[in-house]
Structure formats: structure tokens, C-alpha cells
């Protein structure tokens, strides 16, 4: 290993962005040193637009100057570029398909439903948004249970955290944050005992603690965004800022 940082990895990200956390955590788990550069997720810099002209979004991982985009694509790349180290994906094709399916579910269904709670108005709209999150959590709860794809496991990756844990875990902290800011119950340990236990175990992992910002910082951030949503545009306005 080159003492000057021979892996040549630079991560452009944002401190409150769960997709950035996914990549940071994955790099830590794989023991890959990297340089980190903080970017403004709402106002992409010239560097971000250069490396991600299609979306202009974060994170961007530069490996020897070449850009890797989309956190789930990046995580798979890390396994394939460093195949002799710790692997994030399982080796069996069926298990890999299940990881990909639920990762897509996390981004396509779960995350938007959680964001919808954050931008909801009190009353029926909020109740419907919370119900949708519960529906999605129920599906994950089932997969951790009898007959599920991840039956009886401590983590989705087995005894150690894997790709799906990283994808679901980096983002699940918003559940606790939104519970407080929006005064709703999202992860009831009685309704979702396995999911709740998994999340608690995930958040206890050393690398996870080193990656995810302190909860009070996230709370402060979410409260500020919520104030902006309500104060700047009016309480019932539909033009709310999305939190990723």
C-alpha cells in the first residue's frame, strides 16, 4: 500500500446524506482509506457536475480520477475491484438477487415513504404517510421471520453486516429523527420486533458509530429543514424540500 494513499479514493459527499454514509461505511468495512470532500447537496459544485453530468447528485466516488455514481452501484464496485478483502455481497446468486431486490425496495419504496412523512401535513395526510411506512416495514419484518429470505439472521448479511444492512441502515436513523420532529411512531418495537432489534444491533457496530452523525445533529438539521418548509412557503404548501 502506497503511504501517500495508494488506493486513490476520493469521496465527494454530504454530511447528512444517507447515500454518502453508505459509501463511507462500506469503505470503512473494507478497510479502504479514502479522502473525503464535503459538498453542498443542494448546490452541486463544478466538480460534482463534471463527474455526474446526468444527475448532478451525491455521492461521487473517484477511483484514480474515474467517477463511480449511485451508492448501490458503488458498493458493488468496491466488492468487484477489491475481491480478496471483506465482501459486502453474498456469493450465492439467489442471495445476491434478494439483496439487490431489497436494496431497490429501500430506495424505491421505503425511503420515499419515510420522506413523505417528513413533508406531510397534520391530519389524514400524515396518518396515510405513516401507514405507508408501516406497510413497508411489515414487509421487511416478514423477511427476517419464518420463511423469509433472511430468516433468523442477526443481520441481513448473516453474522456480519453486508450490503443490504449498509443500504437499509444508512437511512433508517431518519426514522427515529422523524418520529421526534413529526411526533409520530414509526418503528414500534412491538409491531416490528425483528426490524427494531436489527436496527439496534446495526447502530452498535463500531464502523457504523464512526460513520453516522450524532442523532442530535441530525435532529437539529431535520428541525431546521422542517422550519424552512413551513415558514418559507406556508404551512400547507406542497412545495417541500425533499430530504434524502
Amino acid at each position: 500500500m502506497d503511504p501517500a494513499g495508494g488506493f486513490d479514493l476520493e469521496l465527494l459527499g454530504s454530511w447528512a446524506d444517507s447515500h454518502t454514509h453508505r459509501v463511507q461505511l462500506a469503505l470503512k468495512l473494507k478497510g479502504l482509506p479514502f479522502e473525503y470532500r464535503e459538498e453542498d447537496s443542494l448546490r452541486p459544485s463544478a466538480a460534482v457536475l463534471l463527474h455526474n453530468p446526468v444527475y448532478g447528485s451525491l455521492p461521487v466516488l473517484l477511483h484514480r480520477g474515474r467517477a463511480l455514481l449511485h451508492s448501490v452501484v458503488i458498493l458493488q464496485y468496491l466488492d468487484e475491484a477489491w475481491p480478496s478483502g471483506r465482501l459486502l455481497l453474498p456469493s450465492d446468486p439467489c442471495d445476491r438477487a434478494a439483496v439487490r431486490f431489497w436494496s431497490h425496495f429501500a430506495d424505491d419504496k421505503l425511503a420515499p415513504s419515510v420522506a413523505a412523512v417528513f413533508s406531510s401535513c397534520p391530519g389524514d395526510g400524515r396518518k396515510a404517510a405513516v401507514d405507508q411506512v408501516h406497510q413497508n416495514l411489515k414487509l421487511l419484518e416478514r423477511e427476517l421471520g419464518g420463511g423469509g429470505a433472511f430468516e433468523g439472521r442477526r443481520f441481513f448479511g448473516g453474522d456480519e453486516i453486508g450490503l443490504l444492512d449498509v443500504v437499509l441502515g444508512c437511512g433508517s436513523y431518519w426514522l427515529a429523527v422523524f418520529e421526534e420532529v413529526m411526533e409520530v411512531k414509526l418503528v414500534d418495537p412491538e409491531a416490528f420486533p425483528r426490524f427494531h432489534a436489527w436496527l439496534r444491533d446495526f447502530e452498535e457496530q463500531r464502523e457504523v458509530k464512526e460513520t453516522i452523525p450524532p442523532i442530535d445533529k441530525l435532529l437539529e438539521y431535520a428541525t431546521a429543514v422542517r422550519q424552512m418548509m413551513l415558514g418559507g412557503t406556508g404551512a400547507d404548501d406542497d412545495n417541500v424540500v425533499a430530504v434524502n
Partner: protein
Amino acid sequence: MAEVVVLLDLWVSPFGQRCRIALAEKGVAYEYKEEYKEEDWTNKSPLLLQSNPVHKKVPVLIHDGKPVCESLIIVQYIYEVWSDGAPLLPADPYARAQARFWGDFVDKKIYECGTRLWKLKGEAQQEAKKELIEILKLLQAELGDKKYFGGDAFGYVDIALVPFCAWFYTYKACGGLSVEAEVPKLAAWGRRCMERESVAKTLYDPLKVYEFVCHLKKKYGIE
């Protein structure tokens, strides 16, 4: 022990067609099962409901009783299980990451925007047309002067996009979008792909697709 491979699908589905093309490229024998008999979208077989309980949608690949859902996940699965023959994904990790990025781009953009183009009217349709042209231009730029998206080898991104070639006639007839005029290099790529047996045998005549769309529009009272 002989493998049993079943594909739950809908004839016109571009997502199902991705799987059929990948299976054909690999020479995998499988049983095709048509869902939604008589175009009743509620008519889902017990096997489909059991195999894809989360989304209850086709395509689903069932390999020795184990279901795999979502077309691009299925294509990657086919690549990983039947590792001889056609390399559906590039060997180089960076090229592979590029392929996954562009496959995801096709997935996110084409179907949704294309549907708005044939479904809507007036300003909303014009907006969809503008957006779809931009999307196709980005893809054409990514293709460049290569034979296929992956270079010389037909692969993942080609498989993700090629089923939509059968919808180009519908985009023109319903939305006034001429793929040939707007993105001629991409249109040429589509014709090159049609020379492949796996694609030619899978894609339906664009007129049949257009007929299907007209039938849908009538059924849902759009017009």
C-alpha cells in the same frame, strides 16, 4: 438433475423481454407462462402472487422453485448462474459499474416518460416529448460510435434498452416523436440489435405494440 426454469411474463412487457433476451443469449431452456389472461390486470395467477408477494408483477424468473424478481436483477442473475457463453456484463469492474449506472438510467426514465407520451395530450404530452428526446440524446451520447453500449459485445445496457425499440412507432404515432429523426445513431443501434436472433425472436412487431396501446387507451377511456 435437470434444471427447471420458468418465466412469468406478459407478451408485450419490455421488462419481461429483457429476461427473454438474456435467456436466449445464454441458450437457457425455460417454460414461458403468460400472465393477465385476456388483459385482465387483476387476473394474476396464484404462482405470481406467491412468487412476487411484494409487487405482484411480472417478470418473475423461477429457477428450481426459487423466484427472482425485477428484470435487471433477473438479467444479472442469469449472467451469474449461467456463466458460460455470452458475457452479459463486462469483466472490468469500472465498465461493469458504468453498465449498472446506465441500466438504472434506462429503468428510471424510459418507461415512465414514454408512458406519459402516449397517454397524455396537449401541453403535458409536449413536455413528455421534450423530456424523452433529452433522455434518448443522453443515451445516444453514451453509445457514441460503439457497436453496442458495452463496446463490441451485446450486453446489459443493450438488453435494458432494446425492448423499447418496439415502442418507437407508438411514440411517433401517439406523440409525434420520431426516434429516427431525433437520434439517428440510436435508431441505427436498434436496427443492429434486431439482427441478433435473441432480439428478433423476442420483440413484437411495432404495429402490434401500437395496436395494444390503442386498445389500452380505449379501455381506459383515454382519447
